[in-house]
């Protein structure tokens, strides 16, 4: 049986059981009301504070409107047609070997050069990994525990560390922040919690693979990372997804908190299904990611490589509150076919002598459209703030487009701002030069594009950088000509 059939069977059978009576069902039927919010909370066995937290968010969400300012176009989302809960498959229902996995997915894994063991994990074969919308297991927990680092699912954290959750969850991205963040707070499925105690350098790169594989199930991950004073953590988030027909909403919230002298490095390689040639069936990725440099001299870096999704709406941001705190944003975004991306960052300088760096590399091919939207705000108390922004666009072909909207608000005269922007094309000269050396046109394009993105790839952890380069090459296959 293929996993798609398995899902069909599960979904089909759930309707028979009916929804209100059976919160033990694997997947809730579509629809959202207070009952569903309560049912999610009950199904996860949450303490009352969490149920109340969700309900408060839900009630507020009802008063909110979907944002319309982004330069992306899509059919109106019917939030009542989405199913808001999908449980992990039981071990006996999980695929037993790679033979049972979608060959398209495996093909992608192979092209990416992902080792077999990891492929199994990614494909949900009984190995420690996060898949579907519920964290099933987390890896390396023991050695992390020795260092005092907590790395677990948010659901577990709600049970095991309720004080930490109550103290920090929603403190960076409150449920009132925006429409999708409000929805996420009400119905978040699961996600990751990381806590690094004072003075601890996390002994390994933390990684979680997310994967969307249950049809029609909105995905509402929630990630919270807290780095106490003087600590350091590097977190990697990556995902691949199989082909599918229906558009899928993904509205994640990521909150990072860095206390005095702490540093958080958050890297993402995102490769969700972008839709077919007409743009049908791709993932809608509406994410709120925000880091709070709460303590003096704290540092948060976002590095992202975005190649997937039909629509991306995403602005990883930094609140530079601590004096001398540092925010960084390094981004590569690719849009091809009918993909649309409206992405960028916000650097909010609040404390004194804060500095931020923005390096954004946008690549458009086919009929892809891409908008960089960056806000740098220097607050009235942010004496000696510095920002450097570099925003480069590379166009492949002549049907794609790239726009840059830098918003700059300076409320302190001492601010030092630098902004550079370029738009370039891969020239015929460059292609011919490479080809005359024996490289195919595709190799030439991927080499030039990887060169263009180098400054961002340099920020990624080594293994991730290699994967990102391959991903870029794969996603630009057939982009020229």
């Amino acid at each position, binding site marked *: 049986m293929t996993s798609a059939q398995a899902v069909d069977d599960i979904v089909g059978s759930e309707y028979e059981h009916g929804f209100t009576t059976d919160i033990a069902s694997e997947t809730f039927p579509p629809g959202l009301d207070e009952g569903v919010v309560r049912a999610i909370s009950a199904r996860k066995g949450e303490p009352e504070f969490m149920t109340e937290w969700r309900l408060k968010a839900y009630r507020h969400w009802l008063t909110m409107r979907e944002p319309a300012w982004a330069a992306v176009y899509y059919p109106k989302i019917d939030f009542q047609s989405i199913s808001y809960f999908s449980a992990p498959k039981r071990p006996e229902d999980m695929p037993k070997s790679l033979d049972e996995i979608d060959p398209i997915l495996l093909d992608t894994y192979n092209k990416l050069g992902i080792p077999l063991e990891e492929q199994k994990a990614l494909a949900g074969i009984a190995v420690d990994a996060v898949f579907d919308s519920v964290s099933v297991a987390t890896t390396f927990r023991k050695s992390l525990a020795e260092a005092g680092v907590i790395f677990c699912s948010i659901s577990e954290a709600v049970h095991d560390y309720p004080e930490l959750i109550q103290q920090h969850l929603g403190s960076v991205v409150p449920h009132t922040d925006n429409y999708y963040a409000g929805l996420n707070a009400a119905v978040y499925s699961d996600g990751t919690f990381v806590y690094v105690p004072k003075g601890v350098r996390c002994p390994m790169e933390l990684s979680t693979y997310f994967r969307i594989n249950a049809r029609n199930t909105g995905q509402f991950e929630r990630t919270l990372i807290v780095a106490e004073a003087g600590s350091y953590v590097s977190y990697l988030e990556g995902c691949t997804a199989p082909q599918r027909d229906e558009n899928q909403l993904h509205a994640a919230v990521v909150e990072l908190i860095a206390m005095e002298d702490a540093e958080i490095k958050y890297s993402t390689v995102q490769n969700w299904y972008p839709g077919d040639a007409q743009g049908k069936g791709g993932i809608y990725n509406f994410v709120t990611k925000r880091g709070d440099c709460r303590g003096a001299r704290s540092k948060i870096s976002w590095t992202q490589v975005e190649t997937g999704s039909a629509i991306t709406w995403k602005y990883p941001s930094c609140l530079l509150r601590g004096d001398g705190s540092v925010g960084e944003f390094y981004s590569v975004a690719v849009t091809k076919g009918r993909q649309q991306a409206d992405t960028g960052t916000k650097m909010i300088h609040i404390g004194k002598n804060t500095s931020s760096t923005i390096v954004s590399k946008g690549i458009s091919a086919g009929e892809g459209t891409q908008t960089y939207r960056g806000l740098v705000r220097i607050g009235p108390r942010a004496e000696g703030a510095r920002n450097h922004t570099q925003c480069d666009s590379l166009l492949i072909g002549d049907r794609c487009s790239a726009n840059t909207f830098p918003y700059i608000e300076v409320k302190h005269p001492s601010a030092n701002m630098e902004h550079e922007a370029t738009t370039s094309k891969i020239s015929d000269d460059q292609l011919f*030069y*490479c080809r005359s050396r024996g490289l195919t046109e595709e190799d030439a394009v991927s080499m030039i594009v990887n060169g263009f993105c180098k400054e961002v790839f340099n920020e990624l952890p080594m293994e991730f950088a290699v994967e990102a380069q391959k991903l870029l090459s794969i996603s630009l296959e057939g982009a020229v000509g």
Partner: protein
Amino acid sequence: MLAVKGLRANVGGKEILRGLDFSVGPGEVHAIMGPNGSGKSTFAHVLSGREGYEVTAGSATFEGQDLLTLEPEERAQLGLFLAFQYPVELPGVNNTYFLKAALNSILKARGEPELDAVSFLRLIKEKLKILHLDDSLLKRAVNAGFSGGEKKRNEIFQMALLEPKLAILDETDSGLDIDALRVVADGVNALRSPERSMIVVTHYQRLLDYIQPDVVHVLSKGRIIRSGGKELALELEEKGYGWIDAEGQAA
């Protein structure tokens, strides 16, 4: 090795090559001289498969294979190499990485095993030694911010590494001072072998003081109007291009 017959080609609707006949045997070095605009670069580009050139008549075969139907990379894989008059910059693309990818692409197409990082670096070191080059160019992006001389040296270095059967050097000497010229010429001479043919395109006789050609051709208005030995280059130097232009007119 290379046989070109009655080659005619248009660029931007204008006929630039007008019935060009030319052939090179194995291990031979041929010089093509001619005034600016006579079609030297056009000829080099048509041979290496650049888009935008419309071949209207004639043929070009390389070891018996029809060159004109092949993609540029297929020609490179067969063993054709063009050292560009204006080498192209590839910002962010590491020179070593580029060369390894190029070499492996060629090896792969020939069904030969690709080189791993260690054997590739060994090969690079060897070639640097032959050419008396230092390794500073290797760490930089391909031609990005290179001086004119560095770009030309890099072309020769690529040629050394890719070991073509036929190399076309398009005005590799132009814009070089005498020291740089000597480095390039020494490199070319080091790469001469009975298996490797070369077409040295130049505007000046000067280069031929360093690279001894077997045959010198004069190209004018898209045609080879004279061929001869080294003395033809000297004659050209003495009398200037006006001389052959006048003859070309008469012909």
